[in-house]
């Protein structure tokens, strides 16, 4: 990974505002994420945490403010945006594996078409990544033949194949059966330990405690609180965070 300006944060959002019609979904968001940092975004549903995550690779455009990745401002549309998105891995709640392609083709499509790697080189690397996330044996199957947990691990391998500077996870375990959540979280925890810069929107408080450097708590489109996990879970500063935690941690 190239670090153009070591002092600069890798991802920087400043004064970001977004509206869905009348609804002000992101309000004056300022957030900086350093290289190798793992930021977990939590909050009640409708708080704007998924939208925040999706603005970072401009799947959602913003109306005000600025987002920069590695010192480079997010372009509007077109070639520059595509090039920048290649450096930002994204994992979705609903996996979104390409339904008409095999697992292996899912992972090699980006490297071959965007990075211009040879097919052989891309396949070798894809198999390596699939082994790493524990689904190497499924390479020739199509997504529909895999369990949810397996599909999500393939999705992680697909993102990793692009050698991203940062990985975005938009509720990666919310669509999974309970027994499959841990296999995905384990892969994510390993990634975090290996120094990947990550933004993770999740309801998994155990993961936040275990892997996060920082917890960002959102409510009603604002960042209400931002603290290290220990502080946040034991001594939340805001009433809203206290209220939220009391609701989810009691059972």
């Amino acid at each position: 990974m190239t670090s153009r300006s070591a002092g600069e944060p890798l991802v920087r959002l400043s004064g970001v505002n977004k509206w869905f019609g009348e609804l002000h979904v992101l309000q004056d968001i300022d957030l900086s994420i350093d290289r190798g940092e793992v930021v977990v975004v939590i909050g009640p549903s409708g708080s704007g945490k998924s939208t925040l995550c999706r603005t970072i690779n401009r799947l959602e455009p913003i109306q005000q403010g600025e987002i920069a990745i590695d010192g480079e401002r997010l372009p509007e549309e077109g070639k520059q945006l595509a090039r920048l998105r290649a450096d930002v891995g994204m994992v979705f709640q609903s996996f979104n594996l390409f339904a008409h392609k095999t697992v292996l083709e899912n992972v090699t499509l980006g490297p071959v078409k965007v990075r211009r790697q040879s097919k052989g080189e891309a396949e070798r690397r894809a198999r390596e990544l699939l082994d790493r996330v524990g689904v190497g044996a499924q390479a020739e199957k199509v997504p529909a033949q895999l369990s949810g947990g397996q599909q999500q691990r393939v999705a992680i391998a697909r993102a990793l194949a692009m050698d991203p500077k940062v990985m975005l996870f938009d509720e990666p375990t919310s669509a999974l059966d309970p027994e499959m959540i841990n296999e995905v979280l384990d892969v994510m925890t390993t990634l975090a330990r290996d120094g990947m810069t990550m933004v993770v929107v999740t309801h998994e408080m155990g993961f936040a405690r275990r892997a996060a450097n920082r917890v960002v708590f959102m409510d009603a489109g604002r960042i209400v609180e931002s603290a290290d996990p220990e502080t946040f879970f034991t001594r939340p500063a805001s009433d809203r965070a206290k209220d939220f935690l009391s609701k989810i941690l009691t059972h």
Partner: protein
Amino acid sequence: MDAVTENLDDYVSGFLTSLSIILWSLVGSLVLGMLIAACRVSPVPPLQRFGAFWVTTFRNTPLSVVLFFCAFGLPELGVIRSFFFFGVLGLVLYTSAFVCEAVRSGINSVSAGQAEAARSIGLNFTQSLRFVVLPQALRTVVPPLGSVIIAMFKNSAVVGAFGVGGDLWSTGLTLTSARGYETLPVFIGVALGFLLITLPAGALLHVIERKVAIAR
């Protein structure tokens, strides 16, 4: 059915002319229709408006009027080509609007997440469409596109009426009006000629449909 057997050569040449109108129009309208559909789903507003304008124009104009403009209007503007060319052009323009809408319905049937995932790995708009969205869209599009294509096959008879001559429909007309054969057997022969094209086409579409179906 003496009318048919006695004039088999005319029928065969009519059949071949119709087939050639159909094949040119098929290629032309599929390519053009997909391009217009790409315009309509593109993120570029002027292209979207152009696509919508195209569809509105050609879907809402009777085929005979489109053909009239091509065959008699374009020569007035200095475009001099054969009637065959103008006939095929008119049929392509008209059919492309319907192909576009069938393809667009297929594109809309592919979940938005597929396109988002494609864009997230850095594919540009054209690549997302080509490698991810269209291959999946074409699966759901085979039945409605098949209907559009078969309607186009039959519309080729209207093209024949616009001065191309020598196609199946005009052969029937010549036999009844110029040579005095009975209408019924002659046009049963014409209908059989079209069935020779449309029935295998329908069967082929059915095979394609089964072949491209996938587990989701």
